[in-house]
């Protein structure tokens, strides 16, 4: 293999975290991949591939060919009483094929990262919200509220993407206020040209509530809210009122009370829009959860956490969440093509369409290793804002089936 030339591919699109960076550089040497240039640690880790033989498909731990594994999977699905189609880390083609599979065999559909999404939906579906997208934040936002823990750990280039040095419209030094955890080194570096401040609190909900009241011209009773002095909050409320475009961002998945964070942030942004402009920018989007959710909305009329059976579907955000649905299921079809995310602990039968490096606690009844979208095959994923979607390209010749191909194999026999 020493003779294989290293090829560098520019402008690679990344489909892992939902931020949708599309300027990656990847060195390809045979089947080995290595990121080069500007990249976040998570993408660097997930893109790194060695030139090793793929793990074969297997049935009860015994290596078999794809057709045999698919046949065994179909047999399990046909005998299933209640199937959970979980994980759902897949591109749009895979999501479509899995929806077809659910319609044919029945099953509950949920994504492994849906907790944050549904905490946000608790707010969206009750009141709606006023939102914004990446390019608007980049260019308009002059005051950014970052609520909760510093999200730069999960979205390594978030602040670089949100706050470029030369925005089109935001004037003067842009402000970033961290409400909750302190900004880490990455955030501070990427926001080097902005004014950063930190309101330390372990109760951002109380802080947001007070900011909402202050922005509405009321003085909430109390000296401090969530441990932050009222005077500081009053000053921030005044700054928000004077700002041109305020953006509130948070990662609902990181908070047990993420639904309340979403609700209070939504209410604050609603209030600010009475006199100036503002938008929410909720974080999320891991492993194309937004794309899968979009597809379910247009195909079934419901978001994730929907059960399909008897040629009809029903949605219940609690009942059909992975953990609850597993309690009723006898079969788990686990799908994780983007990363080696193992299935949750489950006593019933497991069919895994999994990243080849997945380490299982218990050998799945059927394992079909699948290629990664954006590495082994082309595909489409959505960005976290649910508006923009991106074309992933293939970086090497695929030796594993895509999720869509594996699912079709299972369905068609």
């Amino acid at each position, binding site marked *: 293999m020493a003779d294989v030339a290293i090829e560098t591919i520019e*402008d690679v*699109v990344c489909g892992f975290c939902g931020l*949708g960076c*599309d*300027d990656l550089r990847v060195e390809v040497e045979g089947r080995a991949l290595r990121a080069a240039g500007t990249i976040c640690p998570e993408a660097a880790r997930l893109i790194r591939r060695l030139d090793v033989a793929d793990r074969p498909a297997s049935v009860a731990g015994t290596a078999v060919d794809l057709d045999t594994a698919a046949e065994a999977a179909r047999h399990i699905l046909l005998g299933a009483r209640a199937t959970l189609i979980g994980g759902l880390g897949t591109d*749009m083609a895979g999501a*479509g094929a899995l*929806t077809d599979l659910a*319609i044919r065999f029945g099953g509950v559909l949920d994504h492994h990262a849906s907790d944050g999404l549904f905490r946000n*939906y608790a707010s*969206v*579906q*009750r*009141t*709606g*919200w*006023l*939102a*914004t*997208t*990446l*390019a*608007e934040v*980049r*260019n*308009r936002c002059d005051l950014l509220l970052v609520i909760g823990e510093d999200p730069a750990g999960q979205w390594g280039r978030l602040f670089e*993407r949100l706050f*470029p040095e*030369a925005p*089109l*419209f935001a004037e003067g030094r842009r402000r970033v206020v961290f409400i909750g955890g302190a900004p880490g080194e990455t955030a501070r570096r990427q926001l080097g040209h902005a004014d950063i401040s930190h309101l330390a609190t372990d109760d951002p909900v109380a802080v947001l509530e007070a900011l909402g009241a202050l922005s509405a011209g009321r003085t909430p009773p109390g000296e401090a809210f969530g441990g932050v002095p009222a005077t500081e909050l009053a000053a921030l409320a005044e700054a928000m009122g004077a700002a*041109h*475009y305020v953006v509130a961002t948070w990662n609902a998945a990181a908070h047990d009370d993420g639904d309340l964070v979403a609700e209070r942030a939504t209410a604050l942004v609603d209030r600010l*829009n009475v006199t*100036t*402009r503002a*938008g929410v920018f909720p974080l999320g989007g891991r492993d194309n959860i937004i794309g899968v959710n*979009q*597809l379910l*909305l*247009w*195909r*079934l*009329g*419901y*978001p994730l956490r929907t059960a*399909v059976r*008897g*040629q*009809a*579907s029903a*949605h219940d955000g609690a009942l059909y969440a992975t953990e609850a649905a597993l309690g009723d299921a006898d079969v788990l079809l686990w799908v994780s093509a983007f990363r080696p995310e193992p299935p949750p602990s489950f006593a019933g039968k497991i069919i895994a369409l999994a990243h080849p490096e997945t380490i299982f606690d218990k050998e799945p009844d059927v394992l079909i290793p699948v290629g990664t979208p954006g590495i082994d095959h082309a595909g*489409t994923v*959505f960005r976290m804002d*649910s*508006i*923009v*979607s*991106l*074309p992933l390209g293939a970086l090497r010749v695929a030796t594993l089936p895509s999720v869509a191909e594996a699912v079709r194999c299972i369905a068609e026999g």
Partner: protein
Amino acid sequence: MRLRLTGGRVLDPANGENGVATGSVRDIEIEDGRIVAPTDQRADAEYDLGGDVVLAGGIDLHSHIAGGKMNLARLLMQEDRRAFPEMPGNFCGCGGGRAVPTAHATGCRYAELGYTTVFEPAMVGANARGAHLEMADIPNLDTGAYLVLGNDDFFQRLLAAGAHQETINAYVGWMIEATQAFAIKIVNPGGINAFKFNARKLDLDEANPHYGVSPRRVLTTLIRAVTELGLPHPIHLHGCNLGVPGNDETTLATIAAAEGRRLHLTHLQFHSYGTEGDKRFSSSAARIAEMVNGNPNISVDVGQVMFGQTVTASADYMSQYRNRAIASPNKSIGMDIELDAACGVVPFEYKDKSFVNALQWAIGLELFLLVEDPWRIFLTTDHPNGGPFTTYPHLIRLLMDRDFRNAQLATLNKAAQAHTLLSQITREYSLEEIAILTRAAPARILGLTDKGHLGVGAVADIAVHTEDSDREAMFSTTRFVFKNGRLIVKDGLVVELAQGTTHVARPEFDRAIDKDMQRWFDESVGLKSKHFRVADGELRGGAGPTILKCEGVAS
């Protein structure tokens, strides 16, 4: 594959044929998805139509069927989905909903009404890839999308900098190609952009607070661009001040601003409001219809309001932000989008006992009945904004049956009845006129020469209705519907799902603009322009688009 439809009364206004009026019947022959001249060859299948009325497949040139805002509407209005579950006997089991049906339900319900082609009128460029993925999942319909343009910062910057028309044309051409669009839609010209700079309204000659550009300039520049690029469909305009009493003056001024050049005014009903009367809300339908009648360059669709629960979804966030105060149920979503456009989703219930809603209903019908040329007015409810498309049969009866119309009017809000001249209008649409509004005229204004008619060479998209003096009953169901010569609906039920195509327009343009676009996307949008572009192979599951080449003057 050869099919023969025998003994139908053919109603084909595009070719001057009216079998309903003459009572004559004839056969239609189909070979490999197209209508051919009659032969005596053996057909693979024959359908005896027994004197039923044969129409070209319906074409809806303005119906919101795909794109991010429809999914936001689905998310927000789960009660609509729950209230309208999967239809019984629906063999593929995916979907329901009425105001915002699923892709599958959209394709099936339209097909059952005899429609075979529907255009999504507000695709945001940033969302184009998603909109095309969604359209590919709509069965039984050919689709296409109009690209929302004019509020994007790239365009506003060009205008503010005094760019040459040639540069504008290149930009428009690039965007149409990149987003796989069919036409250009302007939504609240410059207003959506101005709202991002905190302007709450923008009149036709008001300056954008940041760029100083007026809606009039946006409009006239883009009219010229689509003309010079040779796009078949004129600018599809959702004008300024949607829903605002007194917007009649804006609408009249907008028609004048076109200065004789082709312009399509969409959902005109929402732009025909005066301020007369004690409620400061009145119908200006007569004034506006008169001006439409006098300006043959103008075409319109109505956006008729139909009573009941719906959800409004529009790129016009400026107007929808205003409307969220009257949301019913009380929740709404708004979004600024990608230096490109925006969207606003507001649930709404039109009530027949409400003065405003009843008058909106009457204004729409006045427009239908007072605009004289059926080739320049199209039957729409701006689905789902004025009401779901499934109300079309009822709307057709309102147009065709004066007694029925007046009986409906008599049940509405009393004050509204006093404010409309509807009861005095005697016009009743003929079947031929309905065929023009729903088939022949949309095909003509979209430049689809092989659709909307039943002549030799036409695509074999055909709807067969059994005549019924109750026109609502007649148009509520179809005896047969053929898509590309395949039977997809029989006796009102979908019997097969056909994969449609997506129409796109391909103008020629100066490709030197590409380097400007690369820089813009890199520096401002934060996305590579090549990743913004949607490739042919991304449409319709790899099948690619149906391309309409444009013969423009700006190459």
